[in-house]
Structure formats: structure tokens, C-alpha cells
């Protein structure tokens, strides 16, 4: 956990957050030797402080949280060319970096995508919470279906909250812009060039690299964990979906079952009460089953789904970390064969080495943070599911017991009648 004296945050170390330019973390030209000392701006020092605190608490709790974001009020937005949903994003904050304490903007899904890709570009080895899927999942009718919109809204809300709770990402310029700027379009124009530039770099590296020389054990372990986790969480999700499917079929048959008691009661005299009693017990249990299925769909399924997406995010993070290392190794190797530019190359190699070191540190810090959050999230989802199941059985139990009580009451009545006559 804590024990790092060097903050895992590379950006705070190297650059000032309040700059408006794109953060050119990966540009080969950025280096410590450019003359910039480690900035001692209040901003970065505050960040460092916050980081240490976070490493102990692993995330901001209610007391220290100073930024609150909500996503709500989805509305249809119609233009000449297309129709889409706009969500309202409300921010309340006491942070000094913000000009005001409250902001309200409208954002569409694409805007969230933009934000996330900016964050990933700039913090390649930080774990950026995933967004809900772009495309409609199979089985859904249309993307304007109410359930789909609500599910997406919740996921978008969770996404922004995760970002706002992140000790580094929440201070990203892009995040601030996303939350505060009315017209995002102009800001979105910047960046793509950078992105494609980075892509070129990546590809060049990929072409020259024959594989990593020596990955540190800890990252190999991480990689393996990510693979396994991804596999396991996928299975848990499948099992859960299967349970829901079987529960739905059970529900359908239950709905056919209770009427058979009522129908039979119509041709009986003495048995009317017990038959109707059992019939209505089955009816009520059917209702409870319906609620239980809903709970499963609304609590456990989204949680599992999110972590399936997280697993993919982690895979991306591991890949990018590997690439950073690969870039360094390639340059390092190349150094041996070009004696002439040795001095310049040495500089470049050193920069890449630093970059790699910082990327690794960033990942390390965020890794334990992520694991803790994952543990909390999944634990509470499973606990909630278990509690709902307990509640289901408790309610059904009460229903059947009250039936027994009514039957006992009736038989005592009958006996009293017989004694009287």
C-alpha cells in the first residue's frame, strides 16, 4: 500500500496541471533536462499530499470528497441530421481550480467517449473506469428504449464518479473542461492529431520490437491475474445470466400454476378455503419471484458487467505499459549500433527510461487502488444479492405460515360448531 515516497503520479511530478495545452507526456522532446525543475506549485504539492492520504484510505470518502457529480435527466435531442440523448451533468465543488461552485452542462454519449479517450491517452498506465458499451446489446430492441437509457445513465453516472474520486484523474484538465464548458465541440477539435501521432509512434515501436526483453515479475503476475480475472468474471456473468433465464421460465410456469388451484376451488365446497389459500400463497410467491429477478438484473448484473469492461481496460493498460517498455528497450538496443549520435541517443534513452519508470509507478499505485475498489464493489453486489434472496425466502415463509394459521383457525371453528350442534 503506502510506502512509496515517490508519488505514483507522473504528471504532477513533471507538469503543471493548469496549463491549457495538451499534456504531451509521450513526446520524445519532453524531458527533465529541458530546464523545468520539479514544479513546486501549490497544485502539485496538494496533489502529492492527497495521494498519500488516498493510499491509506484508497479513495475519498464522504468527508474528504470535495467534488460531486451527477448524471441525470436524459432527454431526446433532435437535429436535422440525427437524434440522440443528452444527459444533464451537474457538478458541485469547492475546489479552487474551478471558477464556480456549481456547474450544469448537457452531454451526449460521444462526449463521454471523448473524455475517456483523452484520459487514457494522457495517463496510459492509469486504470480509467470503463464506459457502458457503445452499441446496443443483443436482445434489446432499440437504443431509445427506456430501460436501456436508464442503465446507460447509471453507468455514466458511475463513470464520472469514479473519475472524480480518482486522486489523479479528477485533476485532469479534460475532466474539468467536460464538467464546465457549455460547448464541448471546440475543445473536442484538439487532440486527434496528437492521438494519431501517438498511434504512429506505437506502430513504429511495434514494428521494431521483437518482444520484451525482460518484463519485471510483478507485471507478469499482474498480466496473468488480468487474464484470469477476465476469464472468471466472464463466467460469473454467464452463470448469472443463466440463472435469470431459468428464473424467468420458472416465473412463467408459476403464473400458470396458481390458477389451477382457483379453478379447482370452483367445484368444491369444503375444500374451497384451503384450495384458494394455497392458490393465493403461490400467487404471492410468484410476485416475490418477479421482484427477485428484477433485483438481480438491476444490482448484480450491472456490477459484473462493469468489471468485465474493467478487465478489458486492464488488458489495455498492461499492453500500453509493455509498449512503453518496448520503446525504451528498442532505443536502448539501437544505441549500441550508432556510435556517432551517442550523446543525443543517451539523452533519449534516459528520457524513455524515466518515462517507463513513471509509467510503472503510476500503474502500481493505481493497481492496488483498483483492486480495493473492485473488492468493495463486488462484495457489496454479492452481499446485496444474498440479502435479497434471504428477503425473498422470508417473505414466502410468512405467506405460507399465515396460510397455516388461517387453516388452524378454521378447523378450530369447525370443531366448535360440531360441539355446539
Amino acid at each position: 500500500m503506502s510506502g512509496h515516497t515517490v508519488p505514483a503520479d507522473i504528471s504532477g511530478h513533471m507538469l503543471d496541471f493548469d496549463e491549457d495545452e495538451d499534456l504531451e507526456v509521450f513526446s520524445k522532446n519532453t524531458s527533465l533536462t529541458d530546464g523545468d525543475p520539479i514544479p513546486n506549485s501549490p497544485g502539485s504539492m496538494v496533489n502529492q499530499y492527497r495521494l498519500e492520504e488516498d493510499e491509506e484510505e484508497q479513495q475519498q470518502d464522504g468527508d474528504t470528497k470535495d467534488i460531486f457529480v451527477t448524471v441525470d435527466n436524459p432527454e431526446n435531442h433532435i437535429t436535422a441530421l440525427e437524434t440522440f440523448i443528452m444527459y444533464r451533468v451537474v457538478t458541485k465543488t469547492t475546489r479552487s481550480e474551478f471558477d464556480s461552485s456549481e456547474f450544469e452542462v448537457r452531454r451526449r454519449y460521444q462526449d463521454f467517449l471523448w473524455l475517456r479517450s483523452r484520459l487514457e491517452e494522457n495517463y496510459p498506465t492509469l486504470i480509467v473506469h470503463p464506459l457502458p458499451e457503445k452499441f446496443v446489446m443483443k436482445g434489446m430492441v432499440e437504443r431509445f428504449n427506456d430501460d436501456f437509457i436508464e442503465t446507460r445513465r447509471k453507468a455514466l453516472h458511475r463513470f464520472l464518479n469514479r473519475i472524480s474520486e480518482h486522486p489523479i484523474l479528477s485533476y485532469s484538465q479534460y475532466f474539468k473542461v467536460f464538467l464546465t464548458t457549455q460547448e464541448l465541440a471546440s475543445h473536442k477539435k484538439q487532440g486527434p492529431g496528437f492521438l494519431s501521432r501517438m498511434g504512429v509512434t506505437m506502430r513504429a515501436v511495434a514494428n521494431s520490437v521483437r518482444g520484451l526483453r525482460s518484463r519485471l515479475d510483478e507485471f507478469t503476475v499482474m498480466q496473468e491475474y488480468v487474464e484470469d480475472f477476465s476469464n472468471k468474471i466472464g463466467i460469473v456473468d454467464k452463470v448469472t445470466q443463466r440463472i435469470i433465464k431459468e428464473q424467468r421460465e420458472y416465473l412463467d410456469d408459476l403464473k400458470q400454476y396458481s390458477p389451477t388451484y382457483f379453478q379447482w376451488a370452483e367445484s368444491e365446497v369444503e375444500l374451497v378455503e384451503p384450495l384458494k389459500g394455497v392458490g393465493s400463497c403461490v400467487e404471492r410467491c410468484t410476485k416475490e419471484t418477479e421482484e427477485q429477478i428484477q433485483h438481480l438484473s438491476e444490482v448484480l448484473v450491472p456490477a459484473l458487467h462493469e468489471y468485465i469492461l474493467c478487465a478489458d481496460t486492464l488488458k489495455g493498460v498492461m499492453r500500453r505499459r509493455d509498449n512503453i517498455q518496448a520503446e525504451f528497450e528498442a532505443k536502448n538496443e539501437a544505441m549500441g549500433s550508432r556510435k556517432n549520435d551517442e550523446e543525443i541517443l543517451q539523452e533519449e534513452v534516459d528520457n524513455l527510461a524515466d518515462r517507463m519508470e513513471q509509467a510503472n509507478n503510476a500503474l502500481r499505485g493505481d493497481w492496488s487502488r483498483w483492486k480495493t475498489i473492485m473488492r468493495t464493489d463486488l462484495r457489496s453486489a454479492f452481499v446485496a444479492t444474498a440479502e435479497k434472496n434471504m428477503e425473498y425466502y422470508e417473505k414466502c415463509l410468512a405467506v405460507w405460515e399465515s396460510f397455516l394459521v388461517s387453516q388452524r383457525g378454521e378447523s378450530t371453528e369447525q370443531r366448535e360448531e360440531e360441539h355446539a350442534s
Partner: protein
Amino acid sequence: MAEDGKEESVASSCDGSDRTEPDGSLNHTVPGDGSSLLRRMEICVAEAERRSGKNAVGMQETFTVYLIETRLLESVDGRNPPPDSLWRRYSEFELLRNYLIVTYPFIVMPPLPEKRAEFVWHKLSADNMDPDFVERRRVGLENFLLRVASHPVLSNDKILYHFLTKEHGWKEMVYETEFQAKADSRLRALNATFRVRSPNKPLMETKHYSDELQSHTSQLLRARTRVADRLYAVYKVHGNYGRVFSEWSAIEKEMGDGLQSAGHHMDAYAASIDDILEEEEHYADQLKEYLFYAEALRAVCRKHELTQFELEMASQDLVSKKQQREELATGIVRTFSFKGMTNKLFGQEAPEQREARLNLLEELIAEGEEAVKDKTAECEEYVERAWADVLRFKDQKDKDLQEALINYAHMQISMCKKGIQIWSNARECFLKM
């Protein structure tokens, strides 16, 4: 189980397990020797065994035999009499029942357990040789014997007594009664369609009710089976959680223990459905008994229709013969008759011939009146006895089914309690994640 103190406690099975008892204290029928067989003798179907032997056409076959144990309740010479036992096949039970149906057509005959497994949810084998099926059949056969032996009328039957006590030669005894001939004619008659002018209203209402009972119980059984199937699937899928949690726990440090133990509870949950559904099968069996009882009830009503029809036919016949006599005596033809026609065409017959015919008619009329008198008495007696047993049956049915429904509620409660316990345990484990 009867809670009323006033109801006689009748000896049930030899192994002491609980049985549903028909009400032995109500006695609407013609009294036999006053005490039903079951009061004098303990009866149980203790075991089942596989046997093989040659059948009627000389082919090798495997079948199951059931051990019937009996023990007289009164002590002889101060000592407790030893138990007696013999083996019977299902087909012998069928023979007994067929004999009883023919001999006591006015009794709503207790049914045998089903010949082939019907309304079984898929996990339960439909195979007649399956041990669970055999066991449930054993219980059903015992139930049949107990019902018959405690019936105020049936329990006095000699063939029944010998069924329980005379292993060899019993079949021959049954065939000697020549019930088979009656059985065949009865079957033919029951399947025929005929119109009855004035059947006994209460019995006809009962026939209508028997149709309803049959329809409703079979619908319920079918629906319950489907529900059981689905529930089975739901529980079993949770077993997959058990496996994946176990695998997942291997890659986690802090979460590992919680996941692993939660997985065990998921396995327990998946396993728990087997016992739950097996118990519910008893409930299904109780309902099935009344599904088959509905058929027996209907048969009693149909037999009345048959008897009434025969009476009406005999009366009809008598009326027409009397009319013929009148025509002959007075010479006035009231209704069209072939004889009348030929008389007109060829002239009337000679007085001697008329005399002869009149005498014959008188004889036939006398016979016919005798027949109608007998048939009327038969009909009345049948209605009286049948109605008495229908009432007895209705009381028994109400009591049994109410008990069955209450038992069902108990089963559901037990299932819920189990569910609460398992998920509570799972929750504890999840909290440790």
C-alpha cells in the same frame, strides 16, 4: 394425521410411519360384522424385490414382487401372534381390484398406484424398474390395502382376506367366482352410450363432479410438474457459482477465503433441491390418488345409469306388452302394429290363435312385472348403497386433501427456511470477501 381425539386410531403400517387413514368411524353402509379388517389385523407392504421367471407365453421376464406382511392384533393364548407374509405382483393387485369392482360396483373403489409413471418431472425416472418408482409404488400399494381393509363393506370380503393370507391358489379362487364374465360385460356396458330418462339427480351431479375433479387434479399435477422442473434448473445452475468461485478464489488474496466458502454454500444450495422435490413427490402422489379416485367415482355413477337404463327398458317393454294385450282383448288398435296391418289385409285371425297369443302375453306380462319389480328393487338398493359410499368418499376426500394441502404448505415452509439459512451463510462469506 388425525388430530381429533374422537377418531379411532387404526393400526397403520408395520414400520410405524405415518399414513393417511380413511375415516373408519363413519358407517353409512350395511354393516358387515361390525369391525373392519384393519381393526383386527396389521397390514403393510414391507418390501419390494426383483424376480425373474417365465410368463404365460413361456418367455423370460423380470418383474417386481411386493412383500405383504400381516399380523393379527388379538393375541392367541396370551402370546402375540407371529407375523405372516407373502409376495404379490402388481398384476395380482390389479386382479383383486377388478374382482372387487365387479362384486361391489356401488363402492367408490380405492385406486392402485399408477401402472406407468405419469406427470413426472424429468429428473424422476419413468422407468418401472427405477428404485424410486418402485418405492413409491410400494407405498401406493400399501395405501390401497389399508383403504380397502378399513372400508366398512370391502373389508369383509373373503377374497380380500385370502389375498392377504393365502399365497398359493388365490388366483384360482378368484377365477372360480366367475367374476371375469361379469367384468367383461360390465366394461362393455359402461362404455356404451345410452340415454337415461330419469336418473338419480344427486348421482348425476356426482358424475359431473367426478369429471371436474379429474380435470382439475390433472391440470394441477401437470402445472406442478413443470414448475418443479424449472425450479430444479434454477437451483442446479447455482452449482456453477460454486465452481467458478472456487477457481476465482485461487487468484485472489484478500477475497479468496470469502469467495471459496461462499462457493461451498452455492453447492449446498444446488444440492438442496433434490430432497425438496422428492418430498413434494409425496404431495403429487396424494393428488394422483384422487385423480384416479375420480375415475372410480364416475364408474359408480355410470353403473347407476346402466341399472336405471335397464329398469327403464324393462318398464318400457312391460308397457308395450300391456298395450298389445289391450289391443288383443279389445280389438282396438291404438298404435300402429304389423299385426294390425296384416289383420286388415288378410283378415283377422281365428279366436283360438288369439286366445293362445293372449295367454302367452299374460305370461310374459307376469314375468315382465316380476322383472320390473326386481329391477326396481335392484335400482333402489344400488342408489342407496352407492349414495352412502359417495358420501363416505366425499368426507374422506375433503379430509385427505385438506391434509395434503396443509402438508404442501409445510413443505414450502421447510424449503424457505432452508433457503434463508443457506443465503444467510453465503452472505456471511461474502461479507468476508
